[in-house]
């Protein structure tokens, strides 16, 4: 009886090992190295310096940030982005103003200032580096959004 249990266990261990090996062979890693190998050196990218506003590719796309944002504080006490992009500051600073959708809370009520759920800008808006896409993408904007 003991022998049978031992044999079964050995077979199971062998099977698990085999399937793990097979999985590893089929998985393609975006890192560029095989799964069991160490990562290749990270490529350091520079964020783009001040550019003109980047056109959207689809209607609901949060506009991309065409400048560096290193060191910008966004806390409950202060939001560096809003010191240029808020409705009261954008004209003087020549910046894009935030959309009025940012004043709505989750119940759809319009608030007197930016809603807390839209306050942390970089949850949706991101600065850009000049990088090749990691995977090929054939997405095309609809005609109405073409620029």
């Amino acid at each position, binding site marked *: 009886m003991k022998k049978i249990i031992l044999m079964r266990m050995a077979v199971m261990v062998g099977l698990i090992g085999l399937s793990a090996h097979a999985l590893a062979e089929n998985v393609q890693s975006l890192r560029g190295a095989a799964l069991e190998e160490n990562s290749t050196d990270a490529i350091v990218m520079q964020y783009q310096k*001040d550019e003109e506003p980047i056109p959207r590719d689809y209607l609901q796309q949060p506009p991309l940030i065409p400048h560096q944002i290193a*060191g910008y*504080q966004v806390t409950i006490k*202060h*939001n560096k982005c*809003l010191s240029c992009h808020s*409705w009261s500051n954008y004209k003087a600073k020549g910046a894009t103003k935030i959309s009025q959708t940012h004043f709505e809370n989750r119940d759809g009520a319009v608030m007197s200032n*930016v809603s807390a759920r839209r306050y942390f800008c970089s949850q949706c808006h991101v600065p850009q580096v000049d990088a090749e896409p990691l995977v090929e993408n054939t997405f095309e904007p609809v005609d109405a959004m073409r620029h």
Partner: protein
Amino acid sequence: MAKKGIPLSVLIIGVILGILFWGGFNWSLELTNTEEFCISCHEMRDNVYVEYKDTIHYNNRTGVRATCPDCHVPREWVYKIRRKIQATNELYHKVLGTIDTREKFEAKRLELARHEWDRMKENDSRECRNCHNYDYMDYPSQGRRAMDNHIRGFDNSLTCIDCHKGVAHELPDMYKDDASAVILKH
């Protein structure tokens, strides 16, 4: 005939004592002018110093650093001594424990920040200008936003601190300064 004037030996002793006292005074003054000294108190080490470590004056591409006294203590002697005398008040509050917890510090943050902002505004950001002098700024090599805002700012006789608040530390609750840039408290 009695000799007139000070005997040579007294003069030499005087000069030596002078060097010792003056040297000792300056030496101990400079000891209090180091980052090490500043963060020997937990009030500085656990609050402002931690925040500063994430900023460009601590960590940057060229490895040039501005430590606490570079910004907070004037370099010119007269201004330095005046600031050092003012700083004795900080010793008093250290003993009182005015900001000895995070909560107490946060409650005082705006007031303390205002002291520094006012000092910088009054002296035309003198401590910034020890390193950053706008006479030597090459505007075209700055970003477009930086160039536009620097030229506009200097034309309107603004000084560094008018815009560059919170470059080295977390900003206090800025509701009074710019209500649009904070979450309104309902």
